[in-house]
């Protein structure tokens, strides 16, 4: 929160798929700022557009209107070398630890490719790779291992290291714990919580699970059918939700104070 200018500026973002009558609007009028060194959690259910938002932030989806600016560069307008440079400023940690690493290449290869996309030589960058593996609490000999030798949680650690080794300005974490068991999820969340303090990460953490993001976010954005229905400091969103949908969402979590298992009067699927 040192800098005044936000690292990520999303302005009136619109994304739709298809043409003419079959147009489906996925995101509508999204405006979000992410300040340097903060984590913004984007929470929503399926169909809320949260994954599309992640893809738009990394430039994989082209908006139909509005703008996404990261570090002062317009993501959608950037071309060629500038675009490549831009892309390396934003790193995405993908959801599925089983498909995010190439089964034919060692962990070292995967990280070396991140450091140097052209030559991808492990020997040249071995020190850097090992130090990042240690940062995510993986032993140095992981370098020579193949993804299938690692557990889901270990792979997710490697994926995090790969995302960070580029020293990106922004990290997008897309449902990075949803494929993991609870105990492994807790480890990964602890790791993220530590790294974001130690490295001063600027992060967009996308999740369907409100409980998961509480521990690690400064601000929370609630998406519903492609629109931001609530955006505020984490404590405020959890303790004093303003929008009806946020309340529904919070009260739907089993164990939450507002959760009530007894049947309600009118509700039809």
């Amino acid at each position: 929160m040192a800098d005044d200018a936000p690292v990520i500026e999303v302005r009136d973002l619109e994304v739709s798929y298809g043409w003419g009558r079959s147009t489906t609007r996925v995101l509508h009028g999204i405006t979000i700022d992410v300040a340097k060194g903060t984590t913004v959690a984007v929470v929503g259910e399926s169909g809320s557009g949260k994954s599309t938002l992640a893809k738009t932030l990394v430039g994989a989806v082209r908006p139909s209107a509005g703008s996404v600016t990261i570090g002062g560069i317009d993501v959608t307008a950037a071309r060629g070398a500038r675009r490549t440079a831009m892309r390396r400023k934003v790193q995405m940690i993908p959801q599925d630890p089983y498909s995010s690493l190439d089964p034919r290449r060692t962990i070292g290869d995967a990280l070396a490719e991140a450091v140097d996309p052209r030559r991808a030589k492990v020997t040249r960058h071995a020190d850097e790779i090992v130090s990042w593996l240690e940062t995510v609490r993986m032993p140095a000999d992981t370098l020579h291992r193949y993804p299938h030798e690692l557990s889901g949680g270990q792979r997710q650690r490697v994926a995090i290291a790969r995302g960070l080794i580029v020293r990106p300005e922004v990290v997008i974490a897309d449902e990075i714990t949803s494929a993991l068991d609870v105990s492994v999820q807790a480890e990964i969340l602890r790791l993220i919580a530590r790294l974001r303090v130690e490295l001063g990460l600027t992060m967009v953490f996308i999740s369907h699970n409100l409980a998961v993001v509480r521990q690690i976010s400064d601000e929370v954005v609630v998406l519903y059918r492609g629109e931001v229905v609530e955006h505020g400091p984490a404590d405020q969103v959890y303790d004093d939700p303003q929008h009806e949908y946020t309340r529904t969402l919070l009260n739907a979590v089993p164990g939450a104070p507002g959760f009530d298992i007894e049947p309600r009067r009118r509700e039809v699927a």
Partner: protein
Amino acid sequence: MAHAAVAEHRSTSPWLHFAVRRLIGLAAIFLVLLVVSFLIVQLIPGDPAAGLAGANADLADIERIRHQLGLDQPLWQRFIDYAGGVLSGDLGTSFMYRQPVLTIIENRLPFTATIALAGIAIVLLVAIPLGMLIGVLTQGGRRKWLDTGFGFVTGFLDSVPGYVMATFLVVMFALGIGVLPLFPPAYTPRFGSASFVLPIAAIVIGPICTVSRVVRRETAVVLGNDYQRTAHGWRLPAWKRYIKWALPNLLTSTLTVSGLVLTGLIGGAVVIESVFALPGLGSGIIKAILDRDYPVIQAMVIVIGMIAALINLLVDILLGLIDERTLGGSHVSA
């Protein structure tokens, strides 16, 4: 909720959309065939007219052919003339037989159509039940021996080319070595339909093996699906689980793959006709290529190509009847 509404909107007339889309597709294929068949003559290396006239032709002959083919006109003019001719039913005159090409096609089409359509029907009627039976009997790794035996026999028969199979069948069933001579070895009008038995047998054996292997594999996949577990959980009797629950899903994936095998069967028919001296389109086009009888080649490329396109359409219509969702697009994604 939102996507349910979209689905309802789309399901108003899937067949109408399908018909429109496929008619446009057929027209496009026809256009491509028209261009390709036109180009056959244009691409003949050297001077097509000299090539066509043969080695002994004098300059006057070459000039005559050049004029006859319209080669003295610009390319686009030739194409328009050619397309106009084809569209008005004038496919030209055979160099070889001095006979309208249309007549030649009309005489030969029934033979090819008979063995191709009968072949496709037999392949589907034999291969689907066979593959499914094997798939059911060997599900979950049961009856290893059957799986291995089936794999070996079909693999072996599949690697025997149709024309080798044809000669083998002739030896077995026509020449009286081993079994009584039951069928004529070559096409003879007086035997009528019996003349078709060996050619059809020769072209179906390979595709039956291929398709039944596909069906066997797909059966294993379908039986492993969650909805089969649901049927199991509802304790539905075996026949219901296989016929009512598995079969429709099996057919969609099988027919999608089999479309390729079936059009390949047309290619097989082209060669088989030569073995059995069947006067069909296949032996016709081969003879025409050897004779450099270009008007016949051009017309037959169009006709055989359109037959293949129609067979593809037929397969897609069958698919649509089984599962309307497949009408939506060319890729079965669900």
